[in-house]
């Protein structure tokens, strides 16, 4: 079989598997929602107080920018996980027994990632055409001008995102939730870096997002008509009053620009090959062994059986009447499950954050230490509600008595206790200072975090959704002073009047979801 044919089949099977999954439909729904928001004017591209006429070139560029921003950021989470799936299903080990090489396998995965993101882009492109007709400012469709930004701006970035997903899946410590958080912050950090980098501003075509290229081209066209344009380029809900429009005919796609954009695709392929250096090819022996609790214990696997005659063991019958259900036992077990498996330094840093919360002034604790403490345990609480699915123990736990009323409340409470423990230092600080508003905000935050995780975990069956949603809220609310999302009261009194009832609603939602799973 030729190499191309191998890669094609690898990517095809993976692509089909993914587009038939529920998560793909959810993401598709979000993309359609984005298109709708743009169509009704809630999202627009503006240059200061001006905007372009809604012709094919403008709409194409605007939709491409929306695609690069949203698919660049959140598309990563959609496509990351295909290597993990091969690992979990055991398909990976079967593939590892074939002559398939590591670069070839990862190239297939990259292609499949790229195809999934391209499918999303195609939906946004279709939405763009509808938007042009809905706005009715130019009824003439100029297909080359409309499609060019999708091909030359969005696709190269999506190629890089697809490669980043492959790279993260190949590097052991970036495979899980930690990698998800790293990408989130990497994207936020790279955005201004791209825009402010002096080399990239000289060669804007090499800037992956295409922001510099489009802002330069559009700015030039606008200045020719409105010389008073003083800069400004934004994609969002606007907010500024629009004082004029201008006609923009699109980017002049010179060979130099096309070469630069093509280089980004080559770079994406290079990243994919680079990832092969770290990829373990499903060999469990290449993954770093976990440190045993008892170093004296024999690290080699115990024999499956011993050859000498085994003692006959008889089980003592249980006195069913004497044995009573204890919620406390389930809670202790859930706490153990939540906290087990962390390295010593995790607990040390958690302890340090609690102490720092006490010794720092109230305002510092509120604004920095408590939010950091509540980001520190994200990978722990993100397992709430989905741990059973992740570790495939649902059938055993769901066939136990009253799984809805015994296990789920204990799981939530364990999450609440751990969250409260990480906020214990702040609790002491606020109590000492008599800061009742701070205490109430802390309590509402401690309620909200496990509730959100439990609800999203139960309904999505994965920790990924919580990790993305929570880190976004955390970044915008406590860290960037968006008061409406400030669940911990970092910059104000928080919003306990909203977050307490919302948490209760989330818990109810989690129960509803689990009840639905049990009825299935």
């Amino acid at each position, binding site marked *: 079989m030729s190499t191309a044919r191998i890669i094609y089949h690898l990517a095809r099977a993976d692509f089909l598997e993914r587009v038939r999954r529920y998560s793909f439909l959810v993401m598709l729904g979000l993309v359609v929602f984005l298109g709708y928001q743009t169509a009704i004017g809630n999202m627009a591209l503006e240059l200061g107080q001006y905007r372009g006429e809604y012709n094919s070139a403008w709409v194409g560029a605007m939709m491409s920018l929306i695609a690069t921003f949203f698919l660049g950021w959140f598309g990563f989470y959609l496509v990351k996980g295909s290597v993990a799936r091969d690992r979990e299903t055991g398909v990976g080990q079967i593939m590892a027994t074939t002559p398939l090489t590591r670069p070839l396998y990862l190239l297939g995965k990259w292609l499949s990632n790229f195809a999934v993101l391209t499918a999303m882009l195609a939906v946004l492109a279709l939405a763009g055409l509808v938007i042009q007709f809905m706005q009715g400012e130019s009824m003439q469709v100029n297909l080359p001008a409309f499609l060019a930004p999708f091909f030359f701006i969005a696709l190269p970035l999506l190629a890089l995102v697809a490669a980043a997903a492959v790279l993260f899946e190949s590097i052991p410590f970036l495979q899980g939730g930690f990698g998800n958080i790293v990408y989130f912050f990497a994207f936020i950090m790279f955005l201004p870096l791209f825009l402010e980098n002096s080399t990239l501003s000289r060669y804007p075509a090499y800037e992956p997002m295409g922001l510099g290229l489009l802002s330069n081209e559009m700015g030039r066209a606008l200045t020719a008509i409105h010389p008073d344009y003083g800069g400004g380029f934004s994609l969002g809900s606007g907010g500024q009053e629009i004082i004029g429009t201008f006609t923009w005919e699109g980017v002049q796609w010179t060979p130099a620009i096309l070469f630069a954009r093509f280089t980004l695709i080559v770079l994406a392929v290079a990243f994919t090959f680079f990832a092969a250096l770290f990829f373990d090819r499903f060999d469990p022996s290449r993954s770093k062994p976990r440190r045993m609790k008892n170093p004296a214990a024999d690290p080699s696997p115990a024999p*499956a059986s011993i050859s000498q005659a085994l003692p006959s063991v008889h089980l003592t019958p249980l006195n069913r009447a004497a044995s009573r259900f*204890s919620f406390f036992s389930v809670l202790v077990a859930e706490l153990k499950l939540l906290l087990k498996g962390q390295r010593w330094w995790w607990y040390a840093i958690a302890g340090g954050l609690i102490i720092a919360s006490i010794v720092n002034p109230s305002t510092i604790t509120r604004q920095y230490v408590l939010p950091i403490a509540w980001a520190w345990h994200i990978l722990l609480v993100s397992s709430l509600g989905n741990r059973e699915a992740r570790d495939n123990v649902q059938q055993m736990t769901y066939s136990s008595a*009253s799984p809805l009323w015994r296990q789920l409340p204990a799981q939530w409470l364990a999450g609440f206790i751990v969250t409260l423990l990480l906020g214990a230092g702040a609790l002491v600080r606020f109590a000492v200072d008599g800061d009742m508003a701070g205490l109430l905000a802390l309590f509402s935050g401690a309620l909200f975090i496990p509730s959100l995780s439990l609800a999203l975990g139960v309904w999505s069956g994965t920790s990924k959704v919580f990790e993305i949603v929570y880190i976004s809220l955390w970044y915008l609310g406590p860290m960037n002073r968006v008061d409406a999302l400030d669940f911990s009261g970092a910059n104000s009194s928080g919003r306990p009047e909203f977050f307490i009832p919302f948490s209760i609603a989330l818990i109810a939602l989690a129960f509803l979801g689990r009840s639905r799973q049990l009825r299935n």
Partner: protein
Amino acid sequence: MQLTVTDLGKEYKRGFWGLKNFSLEIKPGILGLLGPNGAGKSTFMRMLATITKPTEGTITYNNVNVVAQPDALRDVLGYLPQDFGVYPNLNAVEFLEYMAAIKGLDAATARKRIDELLQLVNLKDAARRPLGGYSGGMKQRVGIAQALLNDPQLLIVDEPTVGLDPEERVRFRNLLSDLSGERIVILSTHIVSDVEATATHIALINKGQLLRAAAPEDLLKELDGKVWEWTVQSDDLPALKQKHIISGTIRRSDGVQVRVVSATPPEAQAVSVSPNLEDAYLYFIGGKS
């Protein structure tokens, strides 16, 4: 103690039934479920284990409808799924403590029970090691232990001997025999010898339908005079396979000794022999009955 299944059915997609019109009365002892892959054995067991809700029909345990009141059964249920996982960061004791807690066992009872079970499944030495490092057979034994935690009155085990070495397999079969008596044990497998060694009753399932439910002796009685052996030349074997259900072949110096299930003597030189469960399985599942 009685478990009664009446007109049970499970529709997965419109028109595709995993199980249909399934009725069975199960009394204490070991019921062996036999059937080919996709016959509906696991669907049936998941419904009994209150995990999957039937599309139609009822399951009653001691006259309580467990489809409507699953908790009536869950307190006395032990279930070993065909495909299950474990929490990799916990060790066997911690995992069993967790399962014991959600099954409602108090700490002291759980500790004693876990200790006995770990001895029983021969995991005492590895009990404090993280489950993530266990082999497939060791994980299977942890699964067996969790199924027995609450001293279940109804024990459902789906392909329990998968991944076990021969010695452990024999031990598990003996354990099942010891456990039966005053409880119901339902064992699903397509390893006929496991059922042969333990089952007091056998249910044969194919394409979501119950073909036969009877004691092993009764099933074998139906095959009396229908199992034949004789020796053929190797070259004749392919043609013979086209004509008859062949349940076994043994190479001999003068050819191949074949074992055939057939209502009438397949050849003049064929000698009638005693049937075994494998013959019965092939006879009923093969649709030649």
